[in-house]
């Protein structure tokens, strides 16, 4: 099956083009756009880890190493498409237009973190593994029913493929010809569980055969491969040709979340080797350099811009008005039930220190 589903690469580790046919597509503008976004999200990610270490946010799920997956796929979307991320995909959501502030608020235990900018179709991060797949199918189906050309993309990991919802989502999408792209980031681990304990197959792409839909296996650290294959899959979806399963083979350098210690279950040297050899940013930088497009000053500027943007967002987060605990009750239903109403009243009174609070 690995032969039937080879890893497709457009750039090799040294930044050389391996897919000659497409050379013309790899424009300077595009390459730089990718680079800039990848710098931006990596900067955010590193900040996320350090904020958690300083106790300024809660548990954080880093994505370092997976930037090409997230930038390449998100940039392939159109304005009105739908995005269904997991907890590790805020690189994708911020590239698609989520605000850094809200993403930070999410990791700081604030509901605002689940609210996308108006008009941006971004679902809250899927926490129960694989549950977001059927949602994406439904949203995509609705677009089809409305007769638009909009599509949905849904992100999930290698571990997620073991859940029933993965299967039910793909099967339903295939039956409905729903315009949805199933974007798998195979980073080889589900927390500590390596892929060979998760599944017997050597590829995830081959699981598409169970649904008679296209399965595409790409080098997830090659942003060009990610971008163009996602684009192709989205195109198909828009044209009524149904869903595609994309397996983007990648690696997370760091911990599963800041609550995790990867040294418990794997040799972190491998991450270090990968960092030097197959890093998505380094590879793109090599390509830019090979092409003579790399401009040191420009790169430094982007890095500084990113840092500034992230720092500003952090400041905004820290300045953000304290959460109103009444919100616990405010959004359960369109109209609070009498129970919620009563519980809220009691709660607010005790908060205010009114000793009569519990006297009904």
């Amino acid at each position, binding site marked *: 099956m690995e032969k039937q589903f080879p890893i497709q690469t457009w750039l090799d580790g040294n930044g050389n083009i391996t897919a000659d046919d497409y050379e013309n597509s790899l424009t300077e503008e595009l390459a730089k756009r990718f680079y800039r976004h990848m710098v931006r999200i990596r900067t955010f990610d590193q900040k996320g880890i350090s904020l958690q270490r300083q106790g300024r946010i809660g548990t954080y799920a880093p994505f370092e190493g997976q930037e090409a997956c997230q930038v390449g796929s998100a940039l392939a979307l159109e304005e009105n498409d739908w995005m269904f991320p997991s907890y590790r995909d805020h690189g994708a959501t911020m590239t698609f237009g989520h605000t850094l502030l809200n993403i930070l608020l999410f990791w700081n235990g604030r*509901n605002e973190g689940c*609210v996308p900018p108006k008009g941006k179709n971004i*679902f809250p991060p899927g926490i*129960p593994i694989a549950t977001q797949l*059927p949602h994406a199918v*439904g949203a995509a189906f609705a677009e089809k029913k409305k007769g638009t050309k909009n599509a949905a993309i849904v992100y999930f990991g290698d571990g997620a493929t073991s859940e029933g919802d993965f299967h039910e989502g793909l099967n*339903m999408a295939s039956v409905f010809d729903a315009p949805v792209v199933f974007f798998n980031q195979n980073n080889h681990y589900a927390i500590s569980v390596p892929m060979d304990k998760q599944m017997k197959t050597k590829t995830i792409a081959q699981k598409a055969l169970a649904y008679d839909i296209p399965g595409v296996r790409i080098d997830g650290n090659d942003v060009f491969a990610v971008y163009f294959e996602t684009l192709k899959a989205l195109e198909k979806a828009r044209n009524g040709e149904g869903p595609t399963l994309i397996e983007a083979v990648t690696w997370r350098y760091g911990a599963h979340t800041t609550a995790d210690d990867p040294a418990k279950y794997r040799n972190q040297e491998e991450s270090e080797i990968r960092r030097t050899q197959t890093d998505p940013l380094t590879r793109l930088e090599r390509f830019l350099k090979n092409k003579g497009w790399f401009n040191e000053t420009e790169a430094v500027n982007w890095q500084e811009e990113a840092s500034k943007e992230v720092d500003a967002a952090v400041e905004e987060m820290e300045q953000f008005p304290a959460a109103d605990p009444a919100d616990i009750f405010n*959004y359960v*239903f*369109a109209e609070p039930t009498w129970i919620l109403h009563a519980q809220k009243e009691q709660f607010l009174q005790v908060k205010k220190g009114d000793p009569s609070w519990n006297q009904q």
Partner: protein
Amino acid sequence: MESTVANKQKLTIVQAVTDGMRTKLTEDERVLVFGEDVGKNGGVFRATDKLQEEFGEARVMDTPLSEAGFVGAAIGMAVNGLIPVVEIQFLGFIYPAYEQIMTHASRLRARTMGHYTVPLVIRAPYGAGVRAPEIHSDSTEAIFTHMPGLKVVCPSSPYDAKGLLIAAIEDPDPVLFLEPMKCYRSSREEVPTGKYVVPIGEANKLQDGEDVTVICWGAMVPVAMKAVKEMDKKGVSCDVIDLRTLYPIDKDAIAESVQKTGRTVIVHEAHGTGGVGNDVLAIINDTSFLYQKAPVERVTGFDAPVPFFGFEDDYLPTAERVMHAIEKVIKF
């Protein structure tokens, strides 16, 4: 949206359910009906009879045998402008979708501070008494009323069935709509054609009485009524409340009645432990403690799995058991 209550027809509960869906399918383009066998087959209980013929496959469609999948998809559709009305073939087969309902349908509004909402109706026939095979007879409403963000309704008559279903479809939040399958065809009632609404959250006083409050819902309503009629003959007059909505429960209706009678019997078919009857008890405790003249009696299914149908008549509360309970609260 005008209310065209011009004509009436005599319908059974299941026909009233169909009529409710038909009314909303006609009126609102966004409404979509789907589930297993709801298309050509019209549902295993014929609750969607002829709807596919009338509204086409794009509005009334069969899904794969995939409760988690199609409830999950329904959430995605609801968020994206549609109003899905999905059928779970029997309540006992809703469990694969439990995660989707528990972690998404019911929470999405709260999680996103109202940005995303899930106007979704999940219909499910429930309960024992039709000689169905195992697992087909569950009455597990309590595992849904304990799920914040979800409303749970359960009509006992054709009129309520249609009116509550329309209310559920129009509700901006997810509603679990439980249909007492034992009563699907057991009686007919005049039901207005066209649209009307029975509000969610309002109980129905079935009979006024002075001595004992009897609280019931769904398929237990006829059982309770039979007992009450018998007690009437013995000179015991009962206030009978059909809850109709199991979350949020109509607190005022309960308090008003219990404060009048001081004696309460709750009847439900689900297991006693953890049953919705205990929520009623809590309401009585909270609102009417000083009015109580006797401990509340609960007549419920047992703390055993719903048995094979050979035993289901023994498992289900009977009028006899209800009468005993009424006598007991009176004699206390």
